């Protein structure tokens, strides 16, 4: 057996090593996968893993049963997720106390423990195997599927699954133009937001003449709530690395860089480890696979701002300047990092590359005519199953929310879904059948963005939602363009007035007018999309704005200035519980007599509403 320390010099070396590792993996295929990503870690998966390891050790099973501390397995809401392989028995919310029972019953005797199974909230049905769970059924996990089989720290796991074959094929059997053509043919579009054809972008950089070029992996991921890029890097770092090497070879860059957001220290550790492993095996460095191609990768830590994810700002930040976008043209393929032709690709885009080169057929069958492949969405908000979902492009938003997400949490009803991150748009019920496709989402006033998907229920005020996103953008704008900085300030000023009951009838038109100008007159993508939250909520929920302005009412009961608490004279029994609980001492009344709320003192915290057992507190 070739030792892992020995360098891989040719493609044949790689295939031999892969085969050995495959055999080793299949001869001993019983293992326990504990999700080690952030969602599950927050639920305590790290100590669950440790207990598993100790327990296996104690019972003398460590030799027969393996352990993998994997990347995100998707159902983060139900963490810690533990999957018993090879059967893929799915256990959720596993605690340290459950470990011994799992080993004794399930691992040794194949018995199922019903209490740990996933249960569908609506139907009440329970599921034993991962693939049966509705959450996974409509997904197509081309990029994330392997997370279950990979310990992110182990290049062996990745190689056993055929890892680096795509790189070997690209470097030894294909010319750069052939690779570019294949990527073009696959119709891969950038997953970082703009949806630009990856092949076309590579071609432009390939065509640029220079003795030095760069390829940068954009892992800045600043969208609040989105974490697919982090998850890919932490769960399967070699797949991204492969994409970067192949991209470098295709465009003629010998230097690659991964720009990671400062808030992702774990990802940095995982990438560093992966880089080190790849270097040791000769998959990075000089003369990779004997092809004559040299490639180095370095890591650059981000400045921690949303706007530094924009390509020119990202480059400015790597060069040590303020992370502000600049005018394009000149385009990055003409003048990028240190003035050289540069390509910037998103993490998820790069992770698609090895899949395309390895399983091109299957890839091209996935998705729609204009957008092929899958997209990872980070499904959050008021849905039953939150987490990362990977779906074939073109599937409708309804399918994601209802079939995969399991519908709205807590039996409430759907109100809106926000796609595309902070500057995306909010879509109402009647547009739920919109397919997840770049053009179709743009046409209804939202966008694909990086794949954030926030589901909102009927307790959400859409004016307040617009306000929330504007506030985020106000903090994140670099501030250079007057129309972005001051435009967002003014949009927010008007919306603040509206939620405080100071709205005037002219405000709606003014919001529209200003939004259009802000979109039109700003330099970078942040400014150009910053008015989307306002425009799309105005487009689909104008009535709600009008209610705030005209009737001084917040129909969802969110905007404090517009809601009032009072006590129903008929229902009040004078029990006095609300009086005791009110933190503002705003409630008065004698025992057994009708109580009263002083509107001046009431801070609208809603505690009285929650405490009254006679439903006597009214909110309107």
């Amino acid at each position, binding site marked *: 057996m070739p030792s892992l320390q020995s360098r891989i010099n040719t493609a044949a070396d790689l295939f031999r090593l892969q085969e050995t590792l495959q055999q080793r993996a299949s001869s001993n295929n019983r293992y326990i996968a504990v999700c080690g990503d952030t969602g599950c870690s927050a639920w305590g998966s790290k100590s669950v893993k440790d207990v598993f390891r100790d327990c296996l050790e104690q019972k003398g099973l460590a030799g027969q049963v393996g352990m993998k501390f994997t990347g995100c397995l998707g159902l983060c809401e139900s963490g810690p997720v533990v999957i018993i392989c090879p059967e893929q028995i799915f256990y959720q919310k596993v605690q340290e106390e459950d470990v011994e029972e799992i080993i004794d019953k399930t691992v040794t005797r194949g018995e199922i423990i019903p209490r740990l199974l996933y249960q569908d909230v609506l139907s009440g049905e329970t599921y034993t195997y991962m693939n049966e769970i509705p959450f996974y059924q409509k997904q197509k996990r081309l990029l994330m599927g392997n997370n279950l089989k990979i310990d992110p720290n182990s290049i062996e796991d990745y190689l056993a699954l055929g890892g680096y074959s795509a790189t070997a094929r690209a470097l030894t059997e294909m010319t750069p133009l052939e690779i570019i053509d294949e990527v073009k043919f696959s119709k891969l579009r950038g997953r970082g937001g703009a949806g630009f054809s990856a092949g076309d972008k590579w071609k432009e950089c390939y065509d640029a003449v220079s003795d030095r070029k760069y390829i940068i992996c954009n892992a800045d991921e600043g969208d609040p709530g989105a974490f697919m890029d982090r998850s890919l890097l932490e769960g399967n770092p070699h797949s991204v690395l492969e994409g970067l090497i192949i991209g470098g070879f295709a465009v003629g860059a010998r230097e690659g860089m991964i720009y990671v957001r400062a808030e992702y220290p774990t990802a940095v550790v995982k990438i560093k480890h992966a880089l080190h492993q790849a270097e040791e095996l000769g998959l990075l460095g000089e003369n990779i696979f004997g092809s004559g191609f040299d490639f180095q990768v370095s890591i650059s830590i981000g400045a921690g701002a949303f706007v530094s994810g924009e390509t020119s700002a990202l480059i400015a930040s790597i060069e040590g300047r303020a992370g502000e976008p600049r005018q394009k*043209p000149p385009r990055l393929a003409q003048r990028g990092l240190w003035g050289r032709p540069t390509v910037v690709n998103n993490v998820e885009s790069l992770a698609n590359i090895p899949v395309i080169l390895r399983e091109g057929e299957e890839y091209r069958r996935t998705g729609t005519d204009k957008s092929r492949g899958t997209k990872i969405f980070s499904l959050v908000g008021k849905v039953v199953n939150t987490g990362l979902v990977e779906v074939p492009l073109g599937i409708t938003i309804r399918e994601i929310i209802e079939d995969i997400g399991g519908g709205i949490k807590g039996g409430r009803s759907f109100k809106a879904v926000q796609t595309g991150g902070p500057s995306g748009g909010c879509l109402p019920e009647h547009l739920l059948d919109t397919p997840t496709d770049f053009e179709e989402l743009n046409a209804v006033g939202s966008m694909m963005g990086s794949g954030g998907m926030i589901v909102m229920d009927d307790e959400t005020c859409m004016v307040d939602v617009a306000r929330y996103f504007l506030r985020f953008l106000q903090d994140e704008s670099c*501030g250079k363009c007057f129309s972005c900085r001051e435009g967002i300030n003014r949009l927010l000023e008007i919306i603040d007035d509206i939620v405080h009951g100071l709205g005037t009838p002219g405000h709606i038109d003014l919001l529209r007018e200003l939004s259009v100008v802000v979109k039109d007159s700003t330099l970078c993508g942040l400014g150009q999309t910053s008015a989307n939250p306002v425009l799309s909520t105005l487009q689909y929920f104008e009535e709600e704005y009008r209610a705030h302005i005209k009737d001084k009412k917040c129909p969802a009961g969110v905007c404090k200035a517009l809601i009032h608490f009072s006590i129903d004279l008929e229902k009040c029994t004078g029990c006095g519980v609300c009086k005791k609980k009110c933190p503002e001492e705003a409630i008065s009344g004698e025992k057994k007599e009708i109580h009263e709320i002083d509107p001046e003192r009431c801070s609208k915290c809603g505690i009285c509403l929650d405490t009254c057992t006679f439903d006597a507190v009214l909110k309107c």
Partner: protein
Amino acid sequence: MLEMTLNGLEIQVEPGTTLLEAANFYGIEIPTLCYDAGLSPIGACRLCLVEIGSPDRSRLVSACTFPAQKGLEIRTHSKRVINARKLLIEMYLATCPSSKTIQDLASKHHVTRVRFKQKHDDCILCGLCVRICEEQMQAKAIEFIGRGHELRISTFFDKKSEDCRHCGACMYICPVCQARCQGPQEKDAVCNACLNLEPPCLEEFEDAMCYMDPCVACEQGHEPRKGCSQRKEGS
């Protein structure tokens, strides 16, 4: 030479020319606030917007930073441009009404109302002072500090600068502190006292009496607004 179309006119410019330089060369005026011919352009004020591209796929870009490109179609006075420009000026007025430069822009572009809340900022963050200090005075005593809505101009670490020679270049070039408009009052951002889209002297003379742009011989024929320093007592 690069061929382009400027407002329907076929023009030729040297490579490396910006759209603003091209337009100015051909005699078309585009309003600016953060541009100065002697300093590098940064595209901050967004007032110099022009529309580029064929009408169905056009977009607005800042003329001061956008390089001339072969075959580019440029429109400097389209409806879309004018609308954006006017709203920007309205926002400028709401932010810095005491700037004579901004009041003059408002007058010239017929911005006669302000629908935003009145602020009295003393800086529009055009960065002219930062650039003149660095690029012409070689001092680099002041800088942009912070980000987003907290962006401001100051010395490094807000400490008294060792590099500042008190040359006054920053004050000279500043469009806000250079000339004060005394017109607008607390609640009223628009002065429009200097609103003279055509020189009033033409009523009495064959030729205009001066070439001030905008014309400042404003008392005649116009009723200055209430509170304006130009307003004569009793009128």
